[in-house]
């Protein structure tokens, strides 16, 4: 049994930022199922928001305006105290990352460059070409190396040991040796990222299963606002590789098959830089009404960058150009990019407060796996990278407060009990049963795509719910090919599948019950936002018969009363 003051699960931006903040004073283990550098944060492209006011067009920008944009973007479901805290911290964390060596792009006066992003009143998105996640993650990993953070990579967390409202640590599988190892820890922080792969079409990495959210849920910790799923307007046709909002921030246009810049009809002021929920719905509507282009990989819309010219594209969007050439054989300098909307981001997640605390003592969560909530019903582009670093840092402050105030003695017995449950689950997955895990997952993710998408109706959501329940039943018969515990990716996929089903279940049920349209959640049968009935967070807790039990919680409103949301 390993023992630490803090075990951090996740080597993305959130987990690394927390580790960097904690490792000088506490014994810290950072556990990640992939090497930290392979975490999905690496793929973020467009940038990170902070009201630095470096752009000549943003001289009077400030954290308050950033907060307002975030709250309005969230369709008023964000907790305003949390959004305010994040936006206030934003300039500090960006400067801190710069001091640690992050190679941001620069303006000609030597300050950090900032570009416009959707839903923002000012150009406040700091970037490094279209590789912002890459440079941020490298910088934090470099920091972690400089500080000698203890990293366990290719160790998968399979369960959380919670007993009587206290967290005692995690059970991990060392993929290389195949050993199950309990880690006894005074505090546990989940920074496990989003669940994109619960959907068939997603911009997310293959490892984004949302297993952390499901593991916490299985241990009794609620999921919050799961029905709010962000669909990004522009993913590459076929592979769904993301084409950053920065492409529109730099001036890209969207065209339908009639050659119209159709955003005129939906967001006449903001045009292509309307927030993602609105832009994704506009594109979907164009497609449904026959104004898309047809292709064997599906219907698409054109994202046209040609008028930006080769130099600007090469300088600001070199990665995008490469993706287009490598994956669809289109050079955006000469041809429009074929794009379609698809799943992109998880606004919902593990229910925590702005100190990253959950209802379970000693258990914390931050980053995309959590829901504080700063994004409410719709996240603004550039605010997620910000959330990861701000809340990773804040977790590294609230965890010591807990450690100093309590005499914490995590219980070995609770861990051993949890380990026995994990062993039993593995035995079941490696004996008996006649279903391979993959077809079960395939049914789930197609149901989520088809019926829990950009536009939703009761009938579709009920059909999806029936599928989820069918998939749950099939899961009981899943069996993997080999009973080896080492380097058995199929076994890990099968373990994570259970959590993916729980995540899908909470999303679908939350969406079915929420009879209004808000942010990313759009009900064709309830087209308006209904603040009287629905200005509240959804909580899903695991019930006795494994069905989620739904309850609701108030939204914190401080300065901004809900208004109509137009752009």
């Amino acid at each position, binding site marked *: 049994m390993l023992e630490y003051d803090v075990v951090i699960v996740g080597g993305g931006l959130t987990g690394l930022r927390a580790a960097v903040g904690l490792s000088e004073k506490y014994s810290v283990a950072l556990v990640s199922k*992939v090497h930290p550098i392979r975490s999905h944060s690496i793929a973020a492209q467009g940038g990170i928001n902070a009201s630095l006011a470096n752009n000549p067009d943003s001289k009077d920008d400030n954290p308050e305006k950033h907060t307002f944009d975030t709250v309005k973007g969230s369709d008023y479901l964000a907790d305003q105290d949390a959004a305010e805290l994040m936006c206030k911290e934003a300039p500090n964390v960006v*400067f801190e990352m710069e001091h640690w060596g992050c190679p941001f*792009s620069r303006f*000609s006066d030597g*300050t950090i460059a900032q570009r416009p992003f959707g839903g923002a009143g000012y150009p406040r998105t700091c970037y490094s070409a279209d590789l912002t996640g890459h*440079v941020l993650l490298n910088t934090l990993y470099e920091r972690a190396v400089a500080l000698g953070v203890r990293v366990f990579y290719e160790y998968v967390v399979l369960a959380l040991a919670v007993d009587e409202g206290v967290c005692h640590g995690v059970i991990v599988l060392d993929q290389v040796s195949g050993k199950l190892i309990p880690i006894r820890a005074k505090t546990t922080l989940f920074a496990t990222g989003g669940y994109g792969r619960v959907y068939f079409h997603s911009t997310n990495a293959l490892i984004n299963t949302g297993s952390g959210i499901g593991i916490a849920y299985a241990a009794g910790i609620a999921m919050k606002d799961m029905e709010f799923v962000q669909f990004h307007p522009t993913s590459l046709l076929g592979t769904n590789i993301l084409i950053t909002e920065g492409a529109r921030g730099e001036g890209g246009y969207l065209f339908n098959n009639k050659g119209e810049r159709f955003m005129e009809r939906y967001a006449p002021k903001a045009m292509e830089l309307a927030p993602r929920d609105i832009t994704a719905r506009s594109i979907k509507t164009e497609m449904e009404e026959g104004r898309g282009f047809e292709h064997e990989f599906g219907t698409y819309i054109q994202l046209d960058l040609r008028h930006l010219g080769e130099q600007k594209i090469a300088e600001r969007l070199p990665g995008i150009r490469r993706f287009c050439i490598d994956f669809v054989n289109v050079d955006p300098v000469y041809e429009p990019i074929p794009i379609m909307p698809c799943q992109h981001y998880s606004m919902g997640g593990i229910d925590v407060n702005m100190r990253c605390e959950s209802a379970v003592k000693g258990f914390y969560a931050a980053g995309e796996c959590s829901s504080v909530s700063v994004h409410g019903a719709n996240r603004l582009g550039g605010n997620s990278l910000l959330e990861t670093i701000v809340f990773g840092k804040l977790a590294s402050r609230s965890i010591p407060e807990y450690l100093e105030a309590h005499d914490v003695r995590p219980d070995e017995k609770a861990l051993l009990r949890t380990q026995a449950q994990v062993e039993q689950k593995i035995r079941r997955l490696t004996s008996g049963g006649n279903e391979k895990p993959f077809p079960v997952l395939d049914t789930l993710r197609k149901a989520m795509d088809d019926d829990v998408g950009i536009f939703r109706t009761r009938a579709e959501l009920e059909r999806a719910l029936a599928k989820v329940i069918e998939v749950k039943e099939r899961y009981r018969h899943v069996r993997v*090919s080999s009973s080896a515990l080492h380097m058995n*990716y199929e076994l890990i996929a099968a373990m994570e599948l259970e959590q993916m089903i729980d995540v899908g279940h909470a999303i679908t049920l939350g969406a079915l019950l929420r009879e209004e349209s808000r942010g990313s959640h759009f009900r064709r049968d309830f087209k308006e936002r209904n603040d009287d009935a629905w200005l509240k967070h959804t909580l899903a807790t695991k019930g006795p018969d494994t069905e989620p039990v739904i309850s609701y919680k108030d939204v914190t409103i401080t300065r901004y009363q809900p208004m109509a949301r137009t752009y």
Partner: protein
Amino acid sequence: MSGEIYTFKILRYDAQSPDKGPYFDYYKIRVITGLTVLTVLLRIRDELDGTLAFRSSCRSATCGSCAMVINGLPNLACRTQVGSFQDKTIILEPLPNMEVIKDLVVDMTPFWNMYEKVEPYLIRKSPNPEKEIFQSEQDRKKMDQFVNCILCACCYGACPVPARDPGYAGPAALAKLERFALDSRDERSAASLERVNDDKGVWGCDTLFRCIDACPKEVRPTDAVVGLRKTLVKNKFKRTIGIGGKE
């Protein structure tokens, strides 16, 4: 279904059962145009053989997980189109210069050890300003090439030197060092560069440019080796004529 039948010939080995030795497995699979090697690998694992081991994550040539040898050359499986080969047999092997853990998964510990050795982080001595440290657009651009490195180890697998000298730093670590040496904000001492001033470091490179061919991100690690060599020679000259800074 359209498409053509390809044979995927994949090297299998399990370090936990070395007695079985390495051997090839053959998988026949129908491939439509536009499919990548990674997509096919995922299909093999999901549908045909759940025991196959390979790393993958972002599927967009960004995270560096899926480096392997594809028809003899190191590359990322996710950015290699199956249709780009004349031959209908695709041979997949693990990256060289590292021990195989299972199938296409190698133990990257030596690679990361070398990375850590070069002090791969910004070193500052002056106090930081309240806001950003200023950096001109031109200074920022100087690093671009090396900032792009995704640490996939294609270069390390392609390099002939580690096989002969496992103590050799390798192309990626040296490219990382040059990224910081070129950073106008970095204040590492001349002495810290001395660490690579031997044949485990920059002088170990054979300048065969294999790393340049193998790199999926146009990092050109040999440029870093050449750049560092120049700096080291310049520093030595400065020392000889007595204008060298502190050591």
